């Protein structure tokens, strides 16, 4: 009888979920945005997404092979990294660049730290940052969605036939830069940017593969919240702080600074708040820490958008907050119920 009896420490029953099921939930939540991206960018989206996923998975498998570890593909986190990376690059990005970015994301961003759970920075954002640093031009070339919103202004009157088109954020950046120009003929105001709100909501605007459709992202985010895959702290903190920090300049000069609503809907704000900043591995694990993290992400994003050189700051603010996550964790120690034990 002894053969099939096992002994192990308590407890002996467990909740029915696993890392894999959590990751699967995230993938499911990303599906609406994926559908939207295919609708808007057609084959480009398919190329980018599939090349990123395949490279991520293959890189992780190779790393497992090198370390002579059992395969860790089963936890599906590499797939998420691939999808998120694909979602955050321009649709026109050539496939070879997707491959380099994904390989860098998985190998340097994740596997050198020991794989799932070890990485300090969000792998997908590391991949994107590396691409931005390496191929700046490619990373700022935007294709027009297949289903273009007619109201959208094109980048320059001088070149009406251009295939590329500015993103809403680029317009708002222009408005900020034009703030001190007296020459009214060259003045750009936020009204242009603000006019893109509607298209931002459904997604028929220029931008990264997966970020354009606010609707799809919110659906996915709500799914994550309802299934308990993520807690509400980080998304809420990001959105609230972004809203607050973008209201301040808007109140100062509403022709140069875009409206808070605009900031919430455009760029990587929603995908960042729901899918990227919430990456459990790279965000703090206490509720208080998550608040600080979220506020940091939202605030830094708006800071970079309004004061920095880049039109968008989601990636950098997430990476920056990732880097201080260990510090946050260290200083947001929770006190046990009943106070600190004196032993």
């Amino acid at each position, binding site marked *: 009888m002894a053969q099939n009896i096992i*002994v192990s420490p308590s*407890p*002996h029953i467990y*909740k029915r979920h696993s*890392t894999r099921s*959590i990751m699967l939930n995230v993938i499911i939540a990303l599906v609406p945005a994926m559908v939207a991206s295919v609708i808007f960018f057609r084959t480009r989206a398919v190329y980018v997404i599939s090349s990123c996923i395949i490279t991520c998975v293959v890189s992780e498998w190779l790393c497992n092979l090198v370390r002579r570890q059992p395969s860790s593909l089963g936890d599906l986190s590499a797939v998420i990294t691939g999808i998120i990376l694909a979602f955050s690059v321009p649709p026109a990005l050539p496939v070879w660049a997707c491959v380099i970015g994904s390989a860098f994301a998985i190998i340097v961003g994740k596997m050198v730290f020991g794989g799932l759970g070890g990485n300090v920075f969000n792998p997908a954002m590391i991949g994107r940052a590396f691409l931005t640093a390496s191929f700046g031009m490619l990373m700022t070339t935007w294709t027009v969605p297949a289903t273009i919103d007619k109201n959208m202004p094109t980048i320059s009157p001088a070149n009406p036939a251009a295939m590329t088109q500015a993103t809403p954020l680029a317009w708002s950046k222009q408005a900020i830069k034009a703030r001190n120009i007296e020459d009214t003929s060259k003045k750009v105001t936020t009204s242009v940017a603000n006019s893109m709100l509607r298209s931002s909501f459904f997604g028929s605007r220029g931008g990264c593969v997966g970020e354009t459709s606010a609707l799809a992202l919110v659906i996915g985010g709500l799914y994550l919240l309802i299934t308990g895959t993520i807690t509400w702290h980080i998304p809420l903190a990001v959105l609230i702080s972004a809203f607050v920090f973008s209201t301040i300049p808007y109140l100062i000069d509403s022709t140069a600074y875009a409206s808070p609503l605009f900031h919430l809907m455009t760029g990587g704000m929603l995908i960042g708040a729901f899918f990227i900043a919430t990456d*459990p591995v790279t965000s*703090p694990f206490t509720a208080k820490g998550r608040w600080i993290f979220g506020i940091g992400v939202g605030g830094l994003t708006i800071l970079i958008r309004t004061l920095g050189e880049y039109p968008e700051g989601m990636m950098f603010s997430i990476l920056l907050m990732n880097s201080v996550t260990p510090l946050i964790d260290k200083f947001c120690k929770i006190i046990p*119920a*009943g106070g600190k034990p004196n032993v």
Partner: protein
Amino acid sequence: MPVPKQLAVMLSQHIGAICKPVVNKKDRVTAGQLIGSADAFVSAPVHSPVNGTVKDITLCSHPVLGRAEAIIIESGEDNQPRRPCADKFGNSFDTGRFSPEQIFDAVRRAGIVGMGGAGFPTSVKIRANPSSPIHTVIINGCECEPFITCDYRIMLEWTNQIIAGALLIGRALDCKDIFIGIEDNKPKAVDAFRQAVKDMPVAAGIEVVAVKTKYPQGGERHLIKSILNKDVPAGGIPPMIGVLVNNVATAAAIAEAVIFDSPLTYRPVTVSGSGIKRVGNFYVPVGMAAGELIELAGGLTDDAVKIILGGPMMGIAVADLSTPITKTSGAITILTEKEIGGSRMRGKETPCIRCGRCIQSCPVNLNPTRIAHAVKNNLFETAGQYYMSACTECGCCSYICPADIELAGLIKTGKIFVARQKKLMPK
């Protein structure tokens, strides 16, 4: 239920000093006879549950209570299984008959220990201590662990006896505020107690509280939080804030001991889980081998993989079926692979994804993942900085962890290790 042929009565059924055997090999003993005497204050004597002969006095290991001498008793022919005495408790009852001293003596003589699991000698708990007076007594009828139902059974069947026990505890400590806390998934028990309190004039002061069903509601600090909204200092015990918590079975035993002067030699035990053929509650003599009890319940099914002394959350897995039942063992749970879950069966953890679920689930507000990982990496100082010592080992964190990490086990290991290092220190 037949009386088992042979009993192994551990001389350490409790926390505290181990008893001295007062019988010799080949001696005849009768049911209720003292066989192990307790000289130390924090200790409780041991009695023979049956008539029979002492076959041997030998060292024996118990998974919970450690290694101590056990008295092996071969039961004689003339044994009648003991019956519960609940039906002797009516609605009229007078605590005034007993002085606190008498109650203390009776409890001490009967060798009553906490039957909620910890096994702390009850006499010590109910001894009035002027320097930290107890103002509230809570009778713990939560039974929060899944599968276990023995407390529920006695709450329904021994209602009056338990109330009598509660009143006696109150009398012993000169304390008027008495609560009975029952999880709200046992409405029948709540109703039974409400009715009984109404029917018993002396029990008018007792308040029956239905608390939320949420593991580990039965843990004393959580129960106190729910009922009194007070926090027990981390790493401390309830008497520090003037509260005493006793299990319902303990209360019942107290009533029996004080009124009928009968020692604690039998206790109710739940045998359950899908690995057992016939789930049920049994009134079992202390010292009976677990295997025998399992046989009584129909035996193991073919797919049983885990035999647990206690409930599935805090119980201890054993493989040796000769392990004797003690005064503290309220349940034997037999689980099959299906209940445990495939990945956990393999005992393979995956990397922590830092999801924070363990932190949210910890009822004492600890950071289990930090502590566990520190322990894993031998960083005991760090573990201490995250208040490892405050962990109640409830197991919530291990239960919830999606990465299959044995957090509670690791924390427990760390506590053991630190205790050991401390012991080695002075040298």
